[in-house]
């Protein structure tokens, strides 16, 4: 399911695949997929409206295709984020990052692209992807502000952490079977200036309209959420709590470890001072001072691993849960909208039936205004029939849309779970490894101390013997 590994450093790992052409052909041979891939609403320019794929079946097939296939170790697109630079204008100061793309995909005109992007641009991309694929899980972006006040917006640490997170964000998209084919993604990677692209898109008013609909739907709520999604919701709630806890615990450990390391460092000079007033003990005391110093430095390195590797990953997954909740909400909204439309249709039906048994009063009124009651009745029936037909068509479309959304979510949910498992397993593994390393290094330090003392003793013995 994953088409590559995500690395923390900036250099792309796997080499370019050889048999790329064959792979692309495979995709084309599948008629359904070809239809899907040529679907304008999905792939090209018009990511403006909520897409309605013409054949939901193709979507399902797409995912089936992915699941059945072995995880290809081939990757045909490599994205790196690096070289943060500071830009100063009259109004503001901001940081841009270099986004380097190397690809052999045919949709791209060139095989290499280099652009500069700022955080806002990443936000735009995320928004576009969520708009186009409301029930796909997009990896979270690093947070906009750092609330804790620990790091300055432009401090090296902050920029470095953000750069890594942005790199991961883009790579997750590149690895995603659907999202990586997104036109917006392509634009993001290739366009010199994003400004013009950003300005395109649904007008302000239509966006408002969308939001209102969404809010109305969410207020309304879903009638019956399918069980599997309830299960996912429950899991996400619990998972969110656990991740938040782990985040907090890890932060606390880092804090304690840093303070421990500091105090350890204070011991060394005291031993040195002591060694200055001693004769026989001078050597072992000096050695002691150096041992403590080395342990102090190893301890500092260990903390680095925690803060640079474990903590950011846990934090990412905390952010992930927000994404997941949003995805579930959007799915619910789609369902709610469908249910709303269905109700409207039912309402119209009732109206139509009611119309058949019309009341005397309305007839009376009609004759008063000089209309032929039969004609009027017929007109009304026609109108209702027309409306109902329209609504029914819309419902069909929405039904399709919901089915597609549900399937997309289910498939992506499985994918996400696998990814999460791999990520967390790997990062905890690495943390444990680093801890073992730390203890091994300290062990070596103290064993060398013992060894030197024993040697001294044995030398002393030799002198006594002779």
């Amino acid at each position, binding site marked *: 399911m994953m088409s590559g590994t995500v690395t923390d450093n900036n250099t792309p790992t796997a080499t370019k695949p050889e048999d790329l052409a064959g792979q692309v052909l495979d995709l084309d041979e599948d008629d359904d997929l070809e239809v899907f891939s040529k679907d304008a609403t999905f792939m090209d320019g018009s990511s403006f409206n909520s897409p309605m794929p013409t054949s939901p079946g193709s979507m399902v097939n797409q995912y089936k295709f992915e699941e059945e296939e072995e995880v290809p170790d081939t990757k045909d697109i490599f994205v790196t984020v690096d070289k943060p630079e500071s830009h100063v204008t009259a109004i503001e100061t901001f940081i841009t990052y270099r986004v380097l793309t190397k690809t052999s995909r045919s949709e791209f005109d060139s095989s290499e692209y280099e652009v500069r992007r700022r955080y806002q641009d990443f936000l735009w991309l995320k928004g576009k992807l969520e708009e186009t694929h409301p029930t796909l899980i997009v990896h979270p972006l690093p947070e906009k502000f750092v609330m804790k006040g620990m790091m300055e917006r432009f401090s090296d640490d902050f920029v470095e952490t953000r750069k890594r997170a942005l790199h991961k964000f883009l790579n997750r998209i590149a690895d995603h079977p659907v999202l990586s084919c997104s036109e917006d993604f392509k634009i993001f990677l290739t366009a010199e200036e994003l400004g013009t692209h950003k300005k395109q898109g649904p007008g302000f008013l239509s966006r408002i309209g969308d939001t209102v609909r969404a809010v109305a739907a969410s207020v309304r709520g879903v009638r019956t959420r399918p069980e599997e999604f309830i299960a996912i919701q429950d899991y996400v709630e619990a998972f969110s709590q*656990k991740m938040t806890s782990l985040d907090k615990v890890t932060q606390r*450990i880092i804090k304690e470890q840093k303070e421990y390391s500091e105090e350890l460092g204070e011991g060394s000079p005291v031993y040195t001072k002591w060694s200055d007033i001693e004769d026989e003990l001078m050597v072992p005391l000096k050695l002691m001072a150096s041992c403590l110093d080395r342990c102090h430095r190893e301890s500092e390195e260990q903390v680095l691993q925690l803060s640079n590797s474990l903590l950011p990953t846990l934090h990412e997954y905390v952010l992930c849960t927000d994404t997941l909740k949003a995805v579930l909400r959007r799915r619910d909204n789609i369902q709610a909208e469908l249910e709303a439309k269905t109700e409207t249709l039912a309402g119209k039906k009732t109206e139509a039936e009611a119309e058949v048994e019309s009341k005397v009063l309305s007839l009376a009124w009609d004759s008063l205004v000089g209309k032929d009651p039969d004609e009027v009745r017929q007109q009304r029936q026609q109108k209702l029939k027309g409306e109902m037909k329209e609504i029914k068509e819309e419902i069909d479309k929405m039904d399709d849309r919901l089915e597609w959304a549900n399937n997309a979510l289910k498939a992506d949910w499985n994918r996400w779970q696998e990814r999460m498992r791999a990520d967390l397993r790997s990062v905890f593994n690495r943390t444990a490894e680093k*801890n073992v390393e730390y203890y091994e290094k300290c062990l070596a330090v103290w064993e060398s101390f013992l060894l030197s003392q024993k040697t001294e003793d044995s030398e002393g013995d030799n002198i006594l013997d002779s």
Partner: protein
Amino acid sequence: MFSFVVYYVNTLLIDTYLLFTPQMVEKGGTLLKGLEISVAEAEKRTGKNAVSIQETYTVYLIETRAVDNVSEVANPTPDSLWRRYSEFEIFRNYLLVTYPFVVVPPLPEKRAEFVWHKLSADNMDPDFVERRRVGLENFLLRVASHPVLSNDKIFYSFLTQVFFVLCLLFCVGFFEMKHYGDELQSVISQLLRVRARVADRLYGVYKVHGNYGRVFSEWSAIEKEMGDGLQSAGHHMDAYAASIDDILEEEEHYADQLKEYLFYTEALRAVCRKHELCQFELEMAAQDLISKKQQREELATGTVRTFSLKGMTSKLFGQETPEQRETKLKTLETQIEEGEEMVKERTAECDEFVKNAWEDIERFREQKDRDLKEALISYAIMQISMCKKGIQVWNNAKECFSKM
């Protein structure tokens, strides 16, 4: 630090320096009036030092000429003896110990550190030696013109006696021991404080890991494939958190060993103080004896060397009768006899004390070196044990994580 070979004080020497000619000392006046002092020459010597290693050093000639108080003319033939720089140091340290309220004149620099036009600090350099000679002479003259220091009997024997009083060495030794005691106390206190803080923090680190255990356990409940791995990893985190209690308890032993020596310094200081007391009492007895002898001399010769109220009144109101003088002399003689006995006693006490104390101090020093070295080794062993436990726990946890 000093290393001492000779343990006991030569009582003969004490007697000798106590019984120097009284006219050399003028109470209230300065030695300068009675004695001309100079550091006349410098010479190179080679010889074996305390650890039997050949070395080259410079000696300086101290010349003293008695000045006739009446004629103010110096005796043409001077007394002289050779001393090296380290002996000056010993003497100055003695002054520092004995007169803590005095601003003791400094010695010229030990090493040629501040020589501006020389490339290396060469103590054999003739310019350096010459300037040192002048500096040493200046030092002696300063001491000789000091109202308090000039009366010191050790000063006189430094100038005139070849056998330098060895108990001086012990004064310095005790002084340095006291100083060492103070420093050791300060260092160990600091160390204990740091250790306590480190232990505190370490406790925090380990215990917070217990939270991992709790959260992993809760998390495993909502996971299918990851559940087992998480659960067992959680147990290891709990074990890790619990292990700190034993670790810190063991470390307490180390702290206790340090504390013992912290309290030992108190005892060490007590011994040094006792030495000071002994020394003080000896000096008091010696002072007393000297003054009695002076009085005897005055009575015997009829000359008044010192300014005293008695002397003045006797001048004003007439001198005593020969009978009165006789009685006085007899009393004085008795007192002097008693005084000499007292001094002998006190000297023997001092002697005995110094001998025993120094032996014990040496013993204590060896014990301390052994004990503390062992303590350091056992600390290292504890750290090793802690590291090994840590390695085990995290390796186990790693295995669990890879099963996730």
